[in-house]
Each structure stands twice: as C-alpha cells, then as structure tokens.
C-alpha cells in the first residue's frame, strides 16, 4: 500500500518537483523544524507514526503529505496545526484530541487569514473544532473525515467552522458528532457540495449572515436539525437529502429571516418538520419531494411572497401547518397524495382546490392530547365535517391547481 502511494506521489510530483525539494520527516523529529527549513513550494512527506506535537504553525506555502495517516495528537490540551501562509496544501494526515477551552476555539486545523489553502483526505478526530477558517478566501476543504462525539451544544464546537470568509469550497467531507456539522458566519460566495453531515447535536449545516452561498447534493441525517439558514440572502439549496430529524425542534431545513433564496430538488424524508419557515420572503420552493414527514412544511404567518410549486407531498402525517390565517404565499401545481378531488377534463390538474392544512393538525396543535386519537374514525368524521362546513382551516392557504399524478422528480 505504502509503495503504491509513494509511486503515485512520485508520478504526481515529477512535473513540479524539478525545482522543489522533498523533505522527509518522522515521529522522531519535530515537524515544526522541517517546516521552518522548507522553501516555498517544497513538499514535506510525513512518515506514519504517532506525533505528540502541537501548535505547529505553517508559515511557508508548502505541501504536507502524510504517508498512511500519521497521527498528530493534541493530548486533549492543545490545538494542532495552524496555517498562516497562502497556498498551503495538507493531505492525508490524522489530527486528533484537541483540548477544550472556553477562551480559545480549539481547532484541529486552523486556517488564519489565508487564501488558496487546501485540506484534503485528512482525518480529524475528536476535536472541538475540526477545520477552522477565519478571514480566508479561495480555500478548499475536501474528502476529509471529521468525526467527534459531542453530546451537548455548549461544550462542543463545529466540524467545519468558517468565519468572515469568502469563496470557499467544502466538498465530499464526512462530518459527524459536532455541535454544527458545518458552520458559516459572514461567509459569502461559497459552495458546500456532496458532504455527509450526520449526528450533530445542533445542525448539520448552519448559515448565519452568509449571503450568495449554495449547498447541493449533501446528505443531512439525524442531526438536531438538518440545515438552519438564518439572516441570509440568496442562498441556493439544491439536490440535498434531509432525513430522520426527530424532535420538537427538529427540521429538515429551518429558515429564519431568509430572502430571495431557492430550494429545489431536495428530498425530505422522515423528519418531524420538512421545512420550517419564519420571517422568510421570496423563497422559491420547487420540485422537492416530501415523504413520510410529520409535517412536510410549516409556514408561519410572518412569511410572504414565497412560491411553493411542483413538489410532491406523500405519506406525510400532515402536509402543512401554519399559525395564522393570513396567507401571502403562492401554492400551485403540487402533488398531494391526500387530495381527493376530481379531474373531469383529465388535464392532470384537479378541478377543486386542495387545502393542505388539515383540521386535525390544527386541533392537535391546540390540544396535543387529541393526537392520541389520530387515525381513528373520529379523524375521518372530523375531516369530512370540515369539508362540508369549513370553519377551522385557513381558507386562503390552498393549492388551486393540485396535480392528480405524482411529478417524476
């Protein structure tokens, strides 16, 4: 295995390696020494083994390559790797056991005001913060495994933490067991693609004041909530999967004061609430699949100008919930499996509107105990009675053109 790696590396490095040197280091010596001696563009090969070295600062643009995942251990006290130079490339090392501190955000790998740094194929285990970016631009974090076992929000940090950064690419990482899997605060123009974020205490992905970002093809499962997007604009959310977020504050996506964003082609399955929207405007929710959620969507009365169209709503206990009667959002062309209307002219659109807020969802919200009688005959009787004499459900929240066939998404 090691020999194949070396050959591959050799092949990779041949074109550039003419001028740059390759420095080897092992558990016996300090990596910091090798770094201090390196010239810009050099490659440092780190031999396998356990390195009880910490607070290693990278001040030169070098490439650090671990052979067979050498382990850097912070002994539960220290930060491990601090990058303060541009164009640094870190690959294939294991970073583990940072300390916890209430003073400093202890990070496994910290990028400080740098640009064009890449961290790839690393293992970051049992750290408070996995990869910590501040004031950084054009950095790539990819193919890393960032794993911890946080149990409460206060003690824990985030898997990938980015603050005041721009143009980041977070791709194909596996992140679990942190407070937030990925955390963005004041981060702009960045992409989060193909990550798997699971079992994080708070959110799989968390946006705060981060505009013009996008995340797609990520999988969020079993976090406190899948993704929370707060106080941000122009966020594009496409092709993600949200599953198994269960609890009284659990959502696939939580939108709070978001505007001008798009949620397209995502899959929400087995969440207590698929999408929760509060104070959000002009969001376009289209071509998503909501299957077997408690509530597919909860749209609070503080939302306006949103368009929800061409989605599939199937097997959800309740399709939509809301907290008011005023409805300034548009619902159209969705498929609802609970729709019982008819389509006389057979154009695929039902002839009577569909009201996605069911009586029982309102009833159980007022008196939660009634939930224990859900799906009894009473439920059906109440539903039928409401259809004949609507009195509880908000009449304005309706889909005037419900589809009779499921969209192929």
């Amino acid at each position, binding site marked *: 295995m090691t020999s194949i790696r070396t050959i591959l590396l050799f092949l990779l490095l041949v074109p550039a390696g003419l001028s740059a040197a390759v420095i080897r280091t092992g558990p016996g010596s300090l990596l910091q020494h090798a770094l201090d001696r390196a010239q810009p563009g050099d490659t440092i090969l780190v031999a396998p083994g356990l390195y009880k070295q910490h607070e290693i600062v990278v001040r030169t643009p070098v490439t650090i390559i671990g052979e067979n995942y050498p382990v850097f251990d912070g002994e539960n006290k220290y930060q491990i790797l601090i990058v303060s130079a541009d164009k640094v490339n870190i690959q294939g090392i294991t970073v583990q056991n940072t300390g916890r501190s209430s003073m400093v955000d202890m990070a496994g790998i910290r990028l400080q005001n740098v640009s064009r740094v890449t961290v790839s194929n690393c293992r970051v285990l049992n750290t408070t913060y996995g990869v910590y970016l501040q004031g950084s631009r054009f950095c790539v974090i990819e193919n890393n495994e960032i794993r911890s076992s946080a149990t409460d929000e206060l003690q824990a940090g985030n898997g990938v933490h980015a603050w005041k950064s721009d143009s980041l690419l977070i791709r194909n990482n596996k992140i679990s067991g942190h407070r937030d899997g990925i955390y963005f605060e004041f981060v702009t123009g960045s992409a989060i693609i193909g990550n798997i974020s699971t079992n994080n205490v708070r959110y799989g992905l968390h946006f705060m004041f981060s505009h013009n970002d996008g995340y797609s093809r990520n999988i969020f499962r079993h976090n406190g909530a899948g993704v929370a997007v707060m106080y941000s604009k122009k966020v594009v959310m496409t092709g993600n999967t949200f599953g198994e977020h*269960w*609890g*009284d504050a*659990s959502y696939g996506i939580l939108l709070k004061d978001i505007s001008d964003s798009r949620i397209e082609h995502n899959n929400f399955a*087995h*969440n*207590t*609430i698929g999408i929760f929207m509060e104070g959000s405007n002009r969001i376009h929710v289209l071509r998503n699949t909501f299957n*077997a*959620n*408690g*509530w597919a969507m909860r749209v609070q009365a503080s939302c306006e100008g949103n368009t929800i169209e061409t989605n599939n709503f*199937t*097997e959800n*206990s*309740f399709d939509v919930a809301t907290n008011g009667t005023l409805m300034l959002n548009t619902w159209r062309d969705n498929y609802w*499996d*609970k729709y019982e209307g008819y389509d006389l002219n057979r154009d695929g659109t039902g002839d009577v509107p569909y009201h996605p807020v069911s009586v029982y969802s309102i009833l*159980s919200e*007022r*008196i*939660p*105990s*009634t*939930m*224990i*009688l*859900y*799906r*009894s*005959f*009473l439920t*059906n009787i109440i539903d039928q009675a409401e259809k004949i004499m609507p009195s509880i459900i908000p009449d304005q929240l309706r889909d005037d053109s419900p589809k009779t066939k499921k969209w192929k998404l």
Partner: protein
Amino acid sequence: MLTVSKYVFLDLLKNRSILVYTLVLAVLSFTLLGLDGNSAKGLLSLLNITLLFVPVITTLFSAIYFFNSLEFIELLLSQPVKRTGILLSEYAGMALSLSAAFVAGVGVPLMILLPVGASFVLILCGVMLTFVFTSIGLLIFVLSRDKTRGIGAAIIVSLFFTLLFDGLMMAFIFAFSEYPIDKAVVAMIGLNPVDLARILMLLQLDVAVLMGYSGALFKEFLGSSSGSIFAVGCMLIWIVAPLLLALRIFKKKDL
C-alpha cells in the same frame, strides 16, 4: 384438548361466513393496495378496515358460533372431560380460524404488495384483535342467557369499542384540556383494545409527528419502545382477562 380445537378449526375453515369474510378482506386489500400505486394510502385504508371489521365480525361471529355449538358442547361435556378444557379448545379453534382468515385476506396481499415493517405490525394487530374479540365473544356467550340477547350484546360491545369509546374520550380530552391529562389519556387508551392496535400502527406511521409535540409523556411514551410494549402488554391482558373470566363463569354455569 387440541383434538377438539382441530375439529373446530376444520369445521370453521369450511364455514361459509368465514370464507366470505376472507374473500371480502382479500378483495378490499388487493384493490386498496393496488390502486394508484400509493401503497401507504392503501395501508391506511386497510388499517381503518381492520379496526372496524375485525372487532365487529369477530365478536358477532364467535358469539353466534358459540351459541350454535351449545348443544354440541353439552354433548362433548357428557364425555369424561373438563369444562375448561372444552371451552378453551372451542376458543382456540375459533380464534385460530378467524386469524387464519385475516392473515389470508389481509396478510397475504400485504406481504405480496407491500412487504414493509408497518405491514407486519398491521397483521399482528389484526391477529391480536381477533384473539381479543374472540375472548370477548366467548365471555358474552358465557354470560348471556339466550342467543338473541347475546347477539345484541355482541353488537353493542363491538360498536362501543370501535366508535363510541373514541367519542367519549374526545369529549373527555376537550372537557379537561386545561388540565394535565396526558397520563389519564394514556391510561384510557389501555381500556380499549381497538385504540391500542391503532396506537401500535401510529407508532409505525407517525412517529415523526408524535415527536413534534411538546409534553414529556407523549415523547417518552409514544416516542420510544415503551409505548409499543405498553400497547402489546395491554392487548395481551385484553386477550387473557376476558378468557379467564369466561372460563371461571363457565365452570359454574348451568347448561
């Protein structure tokens, strides 16, 4: 005493009412599950059918059958056998054949068209309800003086459990919604086997929504396995208690 059960079972398998029951269930299952490809919706409809049909048909049919077998039971009791043995084997034969009808009518279509966990739970619920309401049918038989009254009682009891009980409970919940009644509500559910079966299915289909309600009891009771254990435990009590009571009464009954 398995001999008697065996013959009761064989007799009932050829019974026209049982055949019709099986057939109706099978037709309903296939049409509901086969319609528009949305099998989850079909499963829900089947749940409703199970919760209505099984209690009513089982109670009525078993009570009538026991009444019709009265003379034969007398004849059997003129043999050197114990009363409890004969009654138990009549019960077992009846419960097994009605369960077989349910499994053939609902279980087989479910296994073919929708072999998922929730389907298994529905079949289990149907079988448990069959055993519960056969027990109740037997108790009605043992308690009633004549067939007409017995049939009346069977209709009333099964409708009470399928429809009336939930209405009363809803009224209770509305009336006391200001008070902490969660525990009382869970205890009340234990008093109705039909609701217990429904809760078991609810835990399969709607766990996501149940987790959304604040209130520790709901989350602890319904959100964890203890809810299922409670429901199954209560169902077993509902099978055994009426059966034991029926046996006790039958021991001293004049035939």
